[in-house]
């Protein structure tokens, strides 16, 4: 795998980032790019079509498929590339994702929609996810200070992790006080509850497990891959209460079943999850089965998901401080699993665990109307 730094790369184009990530991943796999059979390219808004990759890399008429699935685009590229080699259609595939969000000049994410009737004015993404916090508080009896403390801890944890990571967009620790006082964006979310807007790219080289010894002795194995695209009922069904993402639960259940995970709370060495906003990460802990319903907030405050905790979540800083170039994020999550499980993470953030599994969870869309990707990866082929 390969992964560029994420951040404001004013001086680097999408093509520049793609080349860097592709070369890094190919080198890491001890393979020449020209020996890769097929490519899956993930980008939400930074380009279209296969030539977006084949032109900068000067590929010799190889198949390149551009995919998009909102913020789960990077995972979507990975998923498709995996099926391509698993089916036997190709022997070596590359999944690569890129985004150049800082080229737009806008604050926050801005998606263009197809022509419409004007009744679905896309809300800002913070305003979508902000509804999760009061809903969770109301359902489980938290007062606003409890909720604020839990959200702040999540932001603080992810910034602390990112400070240890040379590839992250934001590499300074942020105090809890700074988080509590940051300006309001979409109540109750403040600036510090929101992930960064960044440029970046990441890539993976994928082969069938039987072929991996040709390339390296210490691959990462894909144990489970799942995607759930929900019916999008959240905004029209009064039964949806904004405290859960069914799509996450369903995709997690599917991936766990494939991988033979029976106790998600205790079988993972680490997890990379979609912390687009702090309340999202909170709820994900329950939807992924890491915490019982209604208790994730206390687990958070107890430090259970801190780097030194029993189940480190987002040890690389997460979307929050690593940044969220949409097309790359799902692959960046896998990149941390790649480093950590194979003992290549730098010592200041390396996780000592004998659990052989890691999880990535990548969300696209909003509460009640989203897609969710879950992967289970591991270093033990037989586990």
């Amino acid at each position, binding site marked *: 795998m390969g992964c560029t730094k994420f951040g404001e790369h004013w001086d680097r184009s999408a093509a520049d980032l793609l080349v860097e990530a592709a070369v890094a991943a190919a080198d890491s796999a001890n393979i020449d790019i020209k020996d890769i059979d097929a490519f899956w390219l993930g980008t939400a808004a930074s380009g279209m079509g296969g030539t977006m990759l084949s032109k900068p890399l000067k590929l010799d008429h190889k198949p390149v498929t551009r995919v998009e699935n909102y913020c789960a685009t990077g995972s979507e590229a990975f998923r498709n590339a995996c099926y391509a080699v698993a089916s036997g259609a190709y022997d070596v595939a590359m999944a690569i994702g890129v985004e150049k969000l800082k080229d*737009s*000049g*806008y*604050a*926050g994410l*801005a998606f*263009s*929609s197809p*022509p*419409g*009737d*004007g*009744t*679905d*004015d896309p*809300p*800002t993404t*913070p*305003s979508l996810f*902000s*509804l999760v916090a*009061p*809903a969770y508080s*109301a359902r489980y009896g938290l007062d606003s200070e409890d909720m604020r403390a839990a959200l702040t801890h999540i932001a603080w944890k992810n910034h602390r992790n990112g400070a240890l990571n040379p590839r992250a967009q934001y590499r300074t620790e942020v105090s809890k006080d700074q988080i509590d006082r940051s*300006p*309001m*964006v*979409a*109540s*109750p*979310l403040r600036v510090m509850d929101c992930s960064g807007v960044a440029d970046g790219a990441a890539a993976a080289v994928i082969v069938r497990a039987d072929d991996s010894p040709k390339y390296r002795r210490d691959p990462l194995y894909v144990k489970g891959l799942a995607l759930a695209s929900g*019916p999008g*009922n959240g*905004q*029209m*069904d*009064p039964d*949806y209460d*904004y405290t859960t993402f069914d799509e996450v639960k369903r995709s997690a259940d599917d991936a766990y079943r494939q991988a033979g995970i029976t106790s998600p709370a205790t079988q993972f060495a680490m997890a990379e999850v979609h912390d687009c906003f702090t309340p999202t990460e909170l709820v994900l802990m329950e939807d992924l089965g890491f915490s019982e319903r209604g208790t994730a907030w206390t687990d958070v405050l107890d430090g259970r998901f801190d780097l030194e905790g029993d189940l480190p979540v987002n040890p690389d800083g997460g979307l929050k401080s690593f940044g969220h170039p949409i097309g790359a994020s799902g692959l960046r999550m896998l990149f941390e699993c790649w480093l950590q499980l194979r003992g290549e993470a730098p010592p200041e953030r390396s996780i000592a665990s004998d659990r052989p599994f890691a999880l990535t969870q990548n969300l696209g869309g909003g509460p009640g109307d989203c897609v969710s990707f879950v992967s289970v990866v591991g270093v033990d082929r037989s586990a």
Partner: protein
Amino acid sequence: MTRGLVAYGAYVPRHRLDVAAASATLEMPSANRGRRAVAAFDEDTTTMGVGAARLAMAGRTLPERGSLAFATSRPAYADKTNATAVHAALHAHKAWRCFDIEGTRAGGTALASALEGTGVSLVVTSDMRTGRPGSADELDGGDAAAAFLVADDSYGPLVAEFVHAYAESIEMMDRWRLPGHPSSDTSEPRFSYFAYQNVALDALDQALKEADAVRSDLTAIVASSPHERLRQRLTSALAHDGVRADPTVDGRVGFAGAADLGVRLAATLDRCAPGDLVACISIVDGVDVILLRATETPNGARTTSVADQLNDTGRSVPYTQFLTWRGFLDREPPRRPDPAPPTAPPSFRSTQWKFALEASKCRACGLRHLPPNSVCAGCGTVGHMTTETMASTPGFIRSFTVDHLAASLSPPVIRAIVDFDGGGRVRCEVTDADANALAIGDQVEMTFRLMYTTGTTHNYFWKARPVGRPNT
């Protein structure tokens, strides 16, 4: 067969501008100590017209055939008929003749023509008045709408019978505006007072004579003019004959252009007694006189009175915000993309949803779908939906957020999840609300609004608005 008003409704927007405070901002003296009504950034003459028409039509269904006259001096669009948007928002049958009448006089003439006509006629008068900052048109103007359902008594009981109408027209440079220009030119008021000096009283006397009546038969006068002095002159002259002028809107709305006569008439009808003879006199480019007699049910048809809407303290807007809303201050926007305009084919396909807030409802399980869908989210049944307009269904705030990032002429944007009585949910903006005072559980009603204008295209849809006393 008697003809008259079957129903009426007036809509006064919730925002107010303190005239003295605005004058002080401009370092101008002001004798006017009142407040004027201000249409919000998300209102225009079309949306206010819909507001008034819905109040008039509350609890009623429009017949399959009629005519809809939309009178305003500030149409949202030239070229395109604006009355058709009002017609669509009322979810009316297709066989209606909808047309716009333009000009400050248009409200009086539209009502008189409808009363003298035949068939069912919905007269919707609506206006937004302003001028250059500090002008009389700005500070003495007002934004409001009033609607009248006119028919003969075979349609239903009348709240006021039509007695007689009389009109005179004068070609005169009293006030004029080039289309698209932000303000009107006016002649010196003393010239206008001269030109109009006896016109209104003489016209009233002529109308009364033609109706075999005299001034002392009158109970109430409804006088409307862009010239406040002419209006007061007329009402004082008639006060000597014992004729009262309802004071409800004085100093609280401002001259509301094409809607002014209608709003004043609505306020008068709100307090009429059976048998009252009411003279409506509109003095613009001549004079229109309409004589009406209140019936046994003068107030039966009203849902929300003009006084109710004015007794709510209303939300005060700072003068700088008023100027921003009216386009006189081109403020720096946030770094967000311009919203995309609605395009014709999708808007055409979803006209009922966009203009009438029509949901689909599954015939198998009853689940309401906003926006409409052909596959049921509850039971999965395909293509077995019926339709249901939700515009008049009350709801409450299930959750909301105050969005400081979103681009708006009036940030922050309040986005809410609204659950409807009897089922159904929609995600929408909340308007006419104080973000600090809004709470989960607050009751809301749906209101037709201008979401934004992007380039040269308006985008209309529905928002939720707190009911009861507005938050100030």
